[in-house]
């Protein structure tokens, strides 16, 4: 009986606690500067997030992608780049922490939206190009704040016959 009580109490507490406590701000292995790479060097998002055009998931870049530019030693003078060089030379992969997730029961294809639908990344991920330090929460979370309503609204207003609002074509 007491375990049940604890269980119930935990449920209640979990519902009451603010969301900020849930997502303890994650520490990325390298403080990647989006602003520098995207705004100043004008590297397109898909250059590094290679899955966005070709697969369901946009993917986080493995160190090999970083290596294409940073292979021959540091380009700038930042400490973060030094960390990157260490990673490239070492055996370990860079373990980026994934922030943006869609729920497990949702089929969301990046290539469909980016390639076929020609949507801009900013539409869902916000102005990533402005961030000089890694973000700690996604600009748009599909879990809590917006959810399905946002998908449906966009699908409806797009006027695209292929942007369906049929449940099974997104729910899996």
């Amino acid at each position, binding site marked *: 009986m007491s375990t*049940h009580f604890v*269980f*119930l109490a935990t449920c209640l507490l979990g519902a009451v606690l603010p969301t900020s406590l849930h997502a303890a701000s994650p520490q990325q292995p390298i403080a990647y500067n989006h602003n520098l790479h995207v705004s100043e060097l004008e590297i397109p998002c898909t250059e590094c997030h290679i899955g966005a055009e070709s697969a369901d998931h946009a993917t986080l870049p493995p160190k090999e992608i970083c290596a294409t530019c940073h292979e021959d030693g540091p380009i700038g003078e930042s400490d973060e780049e030094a960390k990157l060089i260490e990673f490239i030379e070492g055996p370990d992969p860079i373990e980026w922490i994934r922030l943006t997730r869609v729920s497990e029961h949702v089929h969301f294809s990046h290539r469909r939206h980016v390639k076929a639908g020609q949507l801009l990344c900013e539409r869902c991920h916000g102005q990533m190009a402005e961030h000089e330090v890694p973000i700690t929460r996604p600009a748009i979370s599909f879990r809590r704040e917006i959810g399905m309503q946002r998908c449906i609204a966009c699908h409806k207003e797009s006027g695209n016959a292929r942007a369906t609002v049929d449940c099974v074509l997104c729910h899996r």
Partner: protein
Amino acid sequence: MSEPTPTAPVGLDEDLYRPIEQTGRGFYSMAAFFLAVFAFGVYQYIRQLRFGLGVTGMNQPVTWGFYIINFVFFIGISHAGTLISAILRLTQAEWRRPITRMAEVITAIVLAIGGLHPIIDLGRPDRLLNVFKWGRLQSPLLWDVMSITAYFAASTVYLYLPLIPDIARLRDRGTRPQWLYRFLSWNWQDTPQQRKVLHNAMNLLMILVIPVAVSVHTVISYIFAMTLEAGWHSTIFGPYFVAGAIFSGIAALMVVMIVFRKVYHLERYLKPIHFSNLAKLLLVMSIVWFYLTFSEYLTGFFGNEPAELDVLMTKISGPYAFPFWLMVFVNFVVPVALLSRKKTRSIPVILFVSVGIVVGMWIERLIIVVPSLAVPYVEFPQHAYWPSIAEIGIFAGAIAAFCLGFMVFAKFFPLICIWEIEEGRSEALEESVERFRSYLPDPPREDALKEGRP
């Protein structure tokens, strides 16, 4: 303390106040017992919440079990009440006076319990709100939500309105808790105008409550009848369910009446004549029930439609034969044999028959819900449905909740409508003599007298 209202003659109906003002040891021990059973049911439900519906005995294809059976059963019992009391009031049956209150209480309590059962049955009760956010009015389940809420609202008010003058009496006697009676009595002072308002409202409600009550059980039958399932897809399910509901309702009412008559010494009020009259009603309903059951099964049998026949055969000669014939026995054979003769229409016999009918009607719900699911159209691996400890525990908890609810009600409010009894004593006799006189043929007119007989 305010002075007692002039219309309340002190002493005559003391028996009715006693259970409220004096609490015996028996009350507490019974309450503790029922509370324990209820707590066990709650514990089982919590277990079900945690581990899923797997803790029940349901399976594929028997996807509905005890919970839905009990849902139909409890909602059926609820027709006791309001429908009986409304019909008796409407027809100005004078013998109704000590009965109506109990009937209405049964309705209110049982409706609340029965109405919860579909929620207990849900696999995802956490998503209950979906029904309101995105409900589909096309689904008979939604019809049910609608009609049960309407019936619950109407019948609670219908219980409450005739209670107001009695609450005022308790308030004026200084019964505790005073705040409760003062709150619920709505400043009732028995003014002629208040009487008129109450009277009008009750008249309106008793007319409203009858179609609503009929609709409730009809809609419950539609849950089954709207599917294509053999044994469910039947046109007479509506009237069949309503008749069954009234049948089980009267039986439950009799059980409650006999028990509380004994416990609270109400022999002066609930006299053999009341039981005799209700028993005749019960006998009629038993015959009506049998007639509808017979029609329902005969059409399936005669048509010889394979799927329909399969279901029928599982009921009458297959694994469900024992409950089926038991049902026929206790719902039809026993009542007809015992209630149709004046000699055997005594109170202990009536209690025996009524308990049998309550059980029999529960079996009837089982016979309707389970075999149709257990014998699907297309071949499917068969597994017998046996309720688990969770289902039995929750069923016991629901019954305990009913007993507890009734006990608590009886603790705070009189189980027999005091003002109606008083009204009966002071007015009904003359009023009914007047009424009967109006039934008699008019005396011949004077001019006709002259012409006819010079």
